[in-house]
């Protein structure tokens, strides 16, 4: 059944044009979106992995180990 449906899709020649349009729309949209994000927000997002208490306890661990 799937084969039948696929074989009967009309206008397959448009695939190339559609794909190139999709590509440009996608990238333009994505770059504009990223360009308009504000610095304080981006800063707070970048800090997310550091936002827990676990990094302190093992800080500088190498100086207290086996050697």
């Amino acid at each position, binding site marked *: 059944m799937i084969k039948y449906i696929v074989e009967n899709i009309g206008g397959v020649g448009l695939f190339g044009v559609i794909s190139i349009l999709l590509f440009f729309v996608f990238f333009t949209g994505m770059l504009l*979106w990223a360009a308009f994000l504000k610095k304080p927000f*981006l800063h707070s997002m970048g800090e997310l*992995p550091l936002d827990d208490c*676990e990094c302190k306890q093992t800080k500088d661990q190498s100086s207290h*180990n*086996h050697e």
Partner: protein
Amino acid sequence: MTTTNTNIETFKYDNRIVRAFAIMTVVWGIVGMLAGMLAAVELFYPGANLNLQYITFGRLRPLHTNAVIFAFVGNGMFMGIYYSLQRLCKARMWSDKLSWFNFYGWNAIIVAAAITLPLGLTTSKEYAELEWPIDIAIAIVWVAFTINLMATIIKRRERHMYVAIWFYIATALTVAVLHIVNSMEVPAGWFKSYSMYAGVQDALVQWWYGHNAVAFFLTTPYLGMMYYFLPKAANRPVFSYRLSIIHFWALIFVYIWAGPHHLLYTALPDWAQSLGMVFSLMLIAPSWGGMLNGLLTLRGAWDKVRQDPMLKFMVVAVTAYGMATLEGPTLAIKSINSISHYTSWTIAHVHTGALGWNGFLTFSVLYYLFPRLYKTNLWSTKLANYHFWIALLGMMFYIVPIYVAGVTEGLMWKQFNKDGFLQYPNFLETVVQIIPMYKLRAIGGTLYISGMFLMAYNLYKTAKAGVFEPDTEAQAAPLTRDYTEKPGKHFWHHWLESKPIIFTGLAIIAVLIGGAVEIIPMFLIKENVPTISSVKPYTPLELMGRDIYIREGCVGCHSQMIRPFRSETERYGEYSKAGEFVYDHPFLWGSKRTGPDLHRIGGKYPDAWHYNHLENPRSTSPGSIMPNYPWLLSQDLDTNALPARISALRKVGVPYPVGFENGDAQKDMQAQQAKVVTDLKVGMVTADPNKEIIALIAYLQRLGTDIKAAPVAPAAPLTTK
């Protein structure tokens, strides 16, 4: 408007599951690399399998690749995701049961692979070799993982989804799609199946899968881990969060289009090849954006890199990512690919990625996690530093000789003398030339594994010195439902993040567009695979022989795809046409020529030559590194399997007459067996018609003969023992 919530909740992160995956990462890493070591030794000492069929190079290679990709990197990926996801979401995994189902299910699948692959139970499709019952198990376990991942994200206590989580979502969904589409097969018994696709279409689907398995199994989850663990270890935020957003969307959108670069100059239609090449080149941009983002995170913190082995491993991993993602697109340029393809160059390329990117990043995360899970310091920083240098040296000793080998092969295969003939017409000349490089490679591999053992010991001692913390307590306020963001100020970003399901939907659309644009026209446009009327389905005996060819993993060393270059048509014969493969379920084009191409081997040598060659390749081809196949001479052909196989192939479109398998096929098979035995007698070989080797010879003699106008008489002189 933001509503403050003072209702702080206390909860626990699950460390047990992280530890379980971490331990199995180390165990499978050692197992997978040892399998690779043995395979590497067999390439210069073919007797290293001790004439055991279960560990020939052909069966060992998929075991090695599956163990490293799905066992070592797979467990490493789950280790990193289960640790970082909980902390980034400020929530325990949604379901402990699903977490453990993921762990036991995944590792049971790996055990099943470790049993079935040496037994020769394989589909032969690279990185998708496991047979259908295991394929179904993979799908079930993967769905359990995805549900757990998504449910954890939905019930998170952190408003924002950090970019690492985006990479995890893309991984979960895309791997599911790739696995299901590429594993469409019709069973012909419990551990035998035939791909639903044939020839060119099978090749395109396979490399759409194969390429994106690299992208979404080996790359995106590890990029997520890089974006979490690198800032943690350096104790500073990622260099540019804006760049990480562009990195994510550009990577997942572009990667999926690039698959056809594995099939340049093959019988794949030219438009698909060009599409693959262009998108491969575009991939440099997001990949290098990500690499620079990682390395620049360490700006001003390079003093830490000198002191902390974990960061050293991370720096090399990110650098290797950059090198591999520059080299990949370079190899996708058609003119470069014409020299590099089928050579060891590709092997060097993938090992830059596997040893450098995946290996070093996994080591880095392991060194980070163990002291934290066991609430202690790393037992020995000095030992970790030794590991770093041994592994780095090992990696160099591995890849540099293999690059030399690859370039040597590529040039020798194409070299013509002043009279216009091939300079090295005997393929063996090019094999013997690179054996010293194979030996050096084995030394590099040994060094790299030695480092693994040092790490395993160091982590074991760390665990012994500390006390395992099964749960880490944490506190956070739950998210409130009445949170709204002012329109115009990151409205879309917040809207997208607050709806993980919609985010997931958009990510999967981005991924699927590329696949759809490539694959649907391949199935639609009949001109893509011009039919050749003289191409007929395999006879029953040839079919059984082909299944032995698949079982033995011959495709690991021999291609069946002659590219339209004079250097190839001079050496092998007429170039391969798309229409010649319409009954090939699965396709067997291969990706590496450790031995010569076999597409036109049919009729090139007499049956007795094949018999002697398979029994001991050095009897006909002195210096050959192919293993002996003595069991093919002694094992009976499993004729009981024939009806199910013919029936399954009919279901996927091979025009065997209805009822053919109920008597006619058997008669046809016996007649052809008798003919092969008669032909063998001419070469002074007496053989039993029911042995496996008879079927394999029948298959080899059929290869590439359909388009020849008249049968070609054996040309080579007879060689007897």
